[in-house]
């Protein structure tokens, strides 16, 4: 077990290394530069700036320096958005805002999505199933920005039920959390439904019925635990995405989180900031995947870390 985790962490480090390199090279390949603006600075100024930020060195050297500092936890400083402020500092300020929203969204997606799928599977072909199918299909098909904009227009502007922006008060969380969680909730619901249908026809469920197990335990004990693995797989990357903030939702509801900042940094060509947030998101995804791989073991005892697990 410990060996397995160590091995996974090593692979994770390697993945992060590759991601840092690719991110850096991609940024380098984009035409234009951070110092370009309508008012072109003199060549002397440009040279001085390039020298200051190490941009005059050959690309491989730049890459080496960048990756080295990334692994030392230094993402450099922002060039434009908040000039000279360390990227890590910015992430530290923005991430909690997004993460708080993300945790609520994630929890509601899981807490509502899983039972939704269970109920749909249990009532397969009945009215409840059909209603849930329509809802989940809508949730998956309607893009977040449409949903967010519609809700904001009708509930905030027309009816005045909710404040339209900010997240200072609890009530301001309602709509952003809903918008952020609706897609994953529907997705989990669908995943859950199909894997529940698989599990419900298994012979061990019949055994449980023959034992006289109560319907509740039949679904939530005997079937659910066997059916939940695809959902756990999905939860890894989902967690990373929701915690770092919905780019769209944060923009629509003017929430000062990492997601919105990420979009702005791209528009402003703040390269170190783009790279920093990208790598931060990547690290989070990689880490969540490690967590998920370990979580499997606790759900399904048949998964053996001992041998042949690559």
């Amino acid at each position: 077990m410990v060996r397995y985790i160590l091995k996974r962490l090593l692979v994770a480090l390697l993945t992060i290394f590759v991601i840092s390199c690719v991110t850096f090279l991609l940024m380098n390949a984009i035409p234009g530069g951070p110092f370009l603006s309508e008012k072109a600075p003199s060549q002397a100024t440009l040279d001085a700036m390039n020298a200051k930020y190490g941009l005059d060195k050959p690309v491989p050297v730049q890459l080496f320096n960048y990756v080295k500092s990334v692994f030392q936890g230094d993402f450099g400083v922002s060039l434009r958005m908040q000039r000279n402020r360390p990227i890590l500092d910015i992430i530290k300020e923005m991430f909690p805002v997004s993460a708080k929203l993300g945790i609520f969204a994630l929890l509601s997606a899981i807490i509502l999505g899983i039972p939704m799928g269970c109920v749909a599977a249990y009532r397969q072909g009945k009215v409840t199933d059909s209603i849930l199918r329509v809802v989940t299909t809508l949730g998956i098909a309607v893009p977040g920005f449409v949903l967010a904009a519609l809700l904001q227009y009708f509930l905030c502007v027309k009816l005045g039920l909710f404040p339209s922006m900010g997240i200072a008060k609890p009530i301001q969380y309602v709509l952003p959390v809903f918008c952020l969680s609706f897609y994953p909730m529907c997705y989990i619901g669908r995943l859950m439904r199909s894997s529940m249908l698989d599990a419900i026809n298994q012979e061990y469920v019949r055994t449980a019925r023959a034992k006289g197990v109560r319907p509740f335990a039949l679904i939530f004990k005997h079937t659910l635990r066997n059916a939940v693995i695809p959902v756990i797989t999905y939860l890894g990357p989902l967690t990373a995405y929701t915690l770092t903030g919905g780019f769209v939702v944060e923009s629509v509801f003017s929430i000062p989180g990492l997601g919105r900042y990420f979009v702005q940094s791209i528009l402003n060509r703040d390269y170190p900031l783009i790279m920093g947030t990208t790598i931060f998101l990547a690290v989070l995804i990689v880490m969540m995947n490690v967590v998920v791989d370990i979580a499997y073991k606790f759900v399904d005892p048949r998964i053996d870390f001992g041998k042949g697990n690559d």
Partner: protein
Amino acid sequence: MSKALLKVSDLRVSFFTPAGEVKAVGGISYELSENEILGIVGESGSGKSVEAYSIIQLLQPPGRVIGGTIEFDGENLLEYSKTRMRQFRGDKVSMIFQNPMTCLNPVYTVGDQLTEALTCHRSVSSADARTRSIEMLERVGINNVEKRMKQYPHELSGGMRQRIMIAIALICSPRLLIADEPTTALDVTIQAQILELIKELQKDTGMAVIFITHNLGVVAEICDRVAVMYGGKIAEQGTADDIFYSPAHPYTRGLLRSMPRLDEVRRDRLIPIKGSPVDMLNPPAGCPLSPRCDECMKICLRADPSKTKLSATHNVHCWNQRAAAGEKYVMTEAR
């Protein structure tokens, strides 16, 4: 013969498939007393399992009981509510299944699944449930019990899992055990052990057993009485001796002829039953066996034979036997 524990009368089960109604069980009747092992023999699709599943209402839709009664201890099980049925299952009647590899839940320990069967029906402390579970495991011949309780099904062999299934089934001391081909998926030496175990447990507890199988050898070994099913109907019913020494139905005789025997030195081939099993969507109008029967008469094509009693224990559904028994049958001209 003691009082009947289970009395099935004219049970009919149909599956309503898109292709039409499949009469999986077409009106069967039998009785079973305590302390008795009844073997139900038949080929795949003869309705033997469906019949057993309908006793504890584990039929999967689109299967439905459409007629008849199933009386257990004088109460009609078909009138039970869902909740009542659930309380009944696993307590008064238990079931073991064909494939022990897939019948245990892979994500819970043996101990978990065993104690659950008890706590579903009895309010016992967890310590008592554990004691009883350990007792049960020892009873079904499992060694190293403390360790086994903590193991998961995938860590055990097929034979051991079937023993555990039996322990689960018997933990509430049911009065009837339904065994649906419990040895089919096991290799032969393990088969013999499991049969021995079931026989032994039956003797100890005095419960009744319905043993469903397609293996006549297994039937000969453990059953007191045998019902041979064909095409959703009982073809012949009698004691094991009746069936093996004086088979009266052409199908039973066919089955026996198609089995290798150790007591006869014969060079010739086994004789198979010609033709193919009944198409349950379009069953023959008369006797289900008529298209395959060597002794088929005109009436066999037209009408299904009713029961002919050959002795106190032995009865058969065959027009030939009716004639032989000296009964007059009326040729009811179709249309």
